[in-house]
């Protein structure tokens, strides 16, 4: 493994996957906190204020870890991906600078006030602090996704001397259709994570017979928003995203589905193991015509297989891409079912007596994290072997002077630091959850 490229990729993948475990909760949770606090401002909203106070504590812990694990991401553009950075100042660096100035300053100014300042600020100003965190974190999301969308589907650009990317059409660059679909999809996925976590805590308290009023409130809010977000993440946002992939990255779509042969009335595979060496999917179980319909809106549409593309342009980890996509879609489907059931049972008044369902809701919270991660792995593995799709290969983006030994050294360091950080985080969040929604403890 003397080639540093694999280690650069592994380090970036590890640090970004770890990082995104936190913003995916805080973005969704910020919205939930704003909703809770808005309700708390109206008469009879004390229970909502208590719930908001608990979630602000969880939000604070997650936000902190999100911030500290976010800093390495910006640095790594320069340290590990220097040749990519050297040509993308205008199309990537610019948005990172804007994110810092407009989102991070906003968030950092209000975070301490949100976490510690409720008494000092009073309900209305404290609500404003929550709103500021919501706006800041979603702004950060839209900026990063616009950056990513340029790498997925470069539009509005030109190439200057030395292959430098320049923006020629600002409107096209900013309103990249990929960015709009991906942002909507991603924010809904973030709301899925947050509402599953809220639901799980509610179920945990309820099953333990503690904090019943707050448990019910969390179950109500969590399952309601959970069903809404689970549906929206699939349709229309996920559907829109899939059509964009089909249109702009046909090789990625083929790999996501383990499809080697082209043809019309393409089936979608529910199960199967991609066998890249023999260019086929082993043990496939599929539904005919569905892929054609999902990708192009017509049951007889032609969907290309990987055989149509030169191997050099294939995503370089077809197996992982295939499983990432299927895990995401499979889990997403289950989420709609589970939350649909929960909402139905709650509406009929059966939920509190149906302990197996409460158990399922309590234990379900890790799965949105897995689905979100799998979704991003689908997007990023599908983009391979390119950094900027069709224009700049991943192999041509790494730093020329950083060798494998240095990168592995820092990767090991990140693993160690993040392990300790993760343990401390889990300990603190676990304490908050077992302590319950009442006033903060020492």
């Amino acid at each position, binding site marked *: 493994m003397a080639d540093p490229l694999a280690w650069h990729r592994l380090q970036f993948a590890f640090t970004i996957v770890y990082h995104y475990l936190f913003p995916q909760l805080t973005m969704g949770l910020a919205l939930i906190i704003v909703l809770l606090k808005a309700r708390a401002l109206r008469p009879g909203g004390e229970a909502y204020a208590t719930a908001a106070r608990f979630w602000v504590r969880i939000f604070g812990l997650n936000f902190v870890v999100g911030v*500290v694990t976010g800093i390495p991401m910006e640095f790594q553009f320069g340290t590990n991906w220097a040749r990519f950075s*050297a040509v993308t*100042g205008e199309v990537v*660096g610019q948005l990172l600078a804007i994110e810092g100035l407009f989102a991070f300053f906003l968030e950092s100014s209000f975070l301490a006030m949100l976490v510690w300042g409720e008494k000092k600020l009073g309900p209305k100003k404290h609500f404003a602090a929550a709103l500021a965190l919501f706006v800041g974190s979603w702004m950060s999301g839209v900026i990063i996704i616009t950056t990513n969308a340029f790498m997925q589907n470069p539009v509005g650009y030109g190439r200057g001397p030395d292959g430098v990317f320049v923006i020629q059409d600002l409107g096209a660059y900013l309103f990249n259709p990929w960015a709009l679909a991906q942002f909507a999809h991603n924010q809904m996925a973030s709301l899925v994570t947050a509402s599953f976590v809220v639901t799980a805590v509610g179920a945990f308290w309820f099953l333990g017979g503690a904090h019943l009023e707050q448990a019910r409130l969390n179950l109500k809010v969590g399952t309601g928003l959970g069903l809404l977000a689970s549906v929206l993440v699939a349709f229309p946002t996920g559907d829109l995203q899939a059509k964009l992939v089909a249109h702009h990255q046909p090789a990625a779509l083929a790999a996501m589905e383990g499809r080697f042969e082209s043809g019309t009335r393409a089936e979608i595979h529910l199960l199967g193991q991609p066998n890249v060496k023999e260019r086929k999917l082993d043990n496939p179980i599929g539904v005919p015509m569905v892929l054609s319909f999902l990708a192009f809106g017509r049951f007889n549409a032609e969907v290309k297989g990987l055989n149509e593309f030169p191997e050099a342009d294939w995503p370089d980890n077809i197996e992982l891409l295939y499983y990432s996509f299927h895990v995401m879609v499979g889990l997403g489907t289950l989420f709609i079912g589970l939350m649909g059931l929960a909402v139905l049972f709650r509406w009929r008044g059966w939920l509190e007596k149906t302990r197996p369902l409460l158990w399922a809701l309590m234990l379900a919270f890790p799965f949105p994290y897995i689905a979100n991660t799998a979704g991003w792995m689908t997007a990023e593995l599908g983009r391979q072997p390119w950094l900027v799709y069709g224009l700049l290969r991943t192999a041509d983006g790494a730093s020329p002077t950083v060798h494998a030994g240095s990168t592995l050294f820092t990767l090991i360091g990140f693993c160690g630091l993040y392990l300790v950080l993760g343990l401390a985080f889990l300990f603190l969040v676990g304490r908050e959850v077992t302590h319950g929604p009442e006033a903060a403890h020492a």
Partner: protein
Amino acid sequence: MPEISTVWFWLVALLLTAWAVLDGFDFGAGILHRFVARTDSERREVLGAIGPVFDGNEVWLIAAGGSLYFAFPRLMAAAFSGFYLPMIFVVWALLLRGVSLELRSHVTNSLWRSFFDTTFGVSSFAVPLLMGALLGNLVRGVPLREDGYFELGLFAAGGDLGVLDGYTFLCALLVLTTLAAHGANWLVWKTQGPMHQRVRSLRLPLWLGSCSLWLLTTFVTWRVAPDVIARFPQRPLAWLGLVLVLGGLTTVFLKRKEELAPFAGGVAFIVGCLVMTAACLFPVALRANEAALSLSVASAATGASAMKGALLWAGPGVLLAAGYLWWVLRHFRGKVTAARDGEGY
């Protein structure tokens, strides 16, 4: 009108200077933390003095990094990859610092707190040391190759350059001592009680150390990078920097009985040092040992039209950030008291 790349050079310098000044006192407080604050309540006082502001202060670095990436992508690519290990060490130290500050007060257990007090101190020590050494490298120059990249070991050995050699170590010491002194100024301003007295008595020796290290570093720079020093007379901003340095030091020493004035003097000293350095390095963005290979501000820059257009967001963005800073400082004005458990840092 100056070249647009020159405008961005100073804009990035402004953001970096803001980071050095603002996060600088956080690091300084962190360096002193374990030594001056002896009881838990004193330690919470230190944390309370920087807790509400450090996160925002750190964002100046992120904004500077993003702006550097936008305006001088080739400089960022060369410097960040060439300084690979020290850069990642900075990242780790920043990570550890943030985590220590934020997590310490969540648990009352004394071992938990002691652990994070130490990691907070060590990480606050590491960032100025590394950044000082990196700044020294920019002045001394790096072995840039024709392709615009360089490779540099951590330690100078056997005639080979390294990130750490005598000169850059001196720069690291200067930055470390100055930020410790700057942090002491901040703590004197923001705290009261026995710890306040302890920090107060540390201020003078720290500033004397900083002042002598500055003189020594300037003298050695004259030997290490004579061409950089030689630009001084023709650079009006360098003269302004010198005025700030001298005025700042004078204030620090003459007004040493006061609280706010020495802090302002320290700010002037740090800003002056950085302005002088930037003014004398200009028009070189990354100094190569082989002068012909140096990366100039103009040649490392993004396209002119993009940089002009970007002033539309950069101007309001910086003003907005300054507005937040003013607002947060105003909100947390006055002396801090240690927060009770569950109510703050």
